[in-house]
């Protein structure tokens, strides 16, 4: 059975990840019937000194009109390895009750980032999904295509 590449996650989280999609394109996808955006990239990283390529997926979900439902996740092997979202009640990594925006932190032993949540600031009262995404991408070290190709070749 093929092995996972989860041992590469800490390095990947430190690296910049480039996705060939613009923020307006993501927003249009969320506004469409699909209601969510997914794009993947083949990210170049180094595994034990050897250059390798890992497929990463960026998923953005939520309803445009419901800021509390906005969330961004970075996935490897269909498992979230990093992400930011909002909960009105959760326990942080120290077991303290919290509410609001937080980041999912990767746990090497569990190969999961579902349990450890760290509160983050700067996302309250984001005036739009667009500004939210710019801030989240900055925090998650995600780069995007600054050119919006959306309607360039329509018809």
């Amino acid at each position, binding site marked *: *059975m*093929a*092995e*996972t590449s*989860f041992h590469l996650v800490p390095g990947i989280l430190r690296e910049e990840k480039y996705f*060939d*999609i613009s923020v307006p*394109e993501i927003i249009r996808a969320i506004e469409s019937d699909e*209601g*969510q955006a*997914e*794009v*993947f990239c*083949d990210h*170049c990283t180094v595994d034990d000194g050897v*250059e*390798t*390529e*890992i*497929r990463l*997926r960026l*998923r953005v*979900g*939520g*309803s445009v009109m*419901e800021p*509390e*439902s*906005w*969330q*961004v*996740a970075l*996935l490897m*092997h*269909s*498992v*979230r390895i990093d*992400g930011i*979202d909002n*909960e*009105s*009640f*959760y326990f942080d990594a120290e077991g303290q009750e919290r*509410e609001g925006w937080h980041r999912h932190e990767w746990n090497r032993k569990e*190969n999961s980032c*579902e*349990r450890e949540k760290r509160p983050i600031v700067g996302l309250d009262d984001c005036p739009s999904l667009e500004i939210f995404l710019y801030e989240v991408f900055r925090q998650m070290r995600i780069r995007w*295509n*600054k*050119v919006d*190709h*959306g309607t*360039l*070749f329509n018809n």
Partner: protein
Amino acid sequence: MELCSTIRDELASYLGAGVKVSARKDRCVVTLPFTTLDKRRVTVVVEQHAPNTFIVHDGGKTSSELFCQGVNMTRKKEEHQVAIAAKFGVHVTERLFKKYCKPGELQDGILAVAQCALMAMAELIDHKPVIEEETLGAKVSRVLQVWKPEYVLAIERNVTVEGVTAPHSFNFVSYPAQASYNTVAIKILNHDHPRWQAERYGFLGFDIQAAPLVSSWVRCAVVSRADEWPEASIGLVKKFSHRTLEVYSEHEHDMLSMLPATMEELSSEHFRLRLG
């Protein structure tokens, strides 16, 4: 019996303490002491729709969580969720569990939406890591390294070039050691959102036409899972490529084995720069 009333009182007190209601703009966000499979407290939003009507919904959180935790919702799974919701009198519209309630029905409505949100998260039970096969880029890289002839000085990966209006990137660029050979740039186009990929590639081709140096490079597009691409998108890619390799899922190995010969031809001084 005293035990029963003690249990009742303590449970009522526990549930009461676990219910949190906070105001957000013109709505109330209700957090209930029920935990989803991913250890979240279930949250329900209550909005006044009309003087005597409320909308109770999950704010799209359930669908968003499943999506961001890597679950792929098939039509069957979605139908299953709709059927469960209907049993509780809840509708699923635009990825929201939603119920309209009169004031006297509000408590039932909140619990009904919460139950739907809880049950929907059961999709996580079967969710396991999926090991993808090696990327097409990694395979192309290996083929190019084996192919690299003496007249090629270097094959660089992830090369960014300046177009007239924006920067663009190629997955590989083969630089010749002698001026009589061509520089060949390879762009791998993945199968997700083929139209977007094709439009981007079209823009790249269009934007570098007048860019110094780069416009003289030979462009080769490698289309991953070409069988999943619409004809129009492939057509657009071809229009802006000197050569397009359509890699079909079942014939990937055969297509990649043709790459050295294609590189040989494109690098040759006899190859004429002609699009499509």
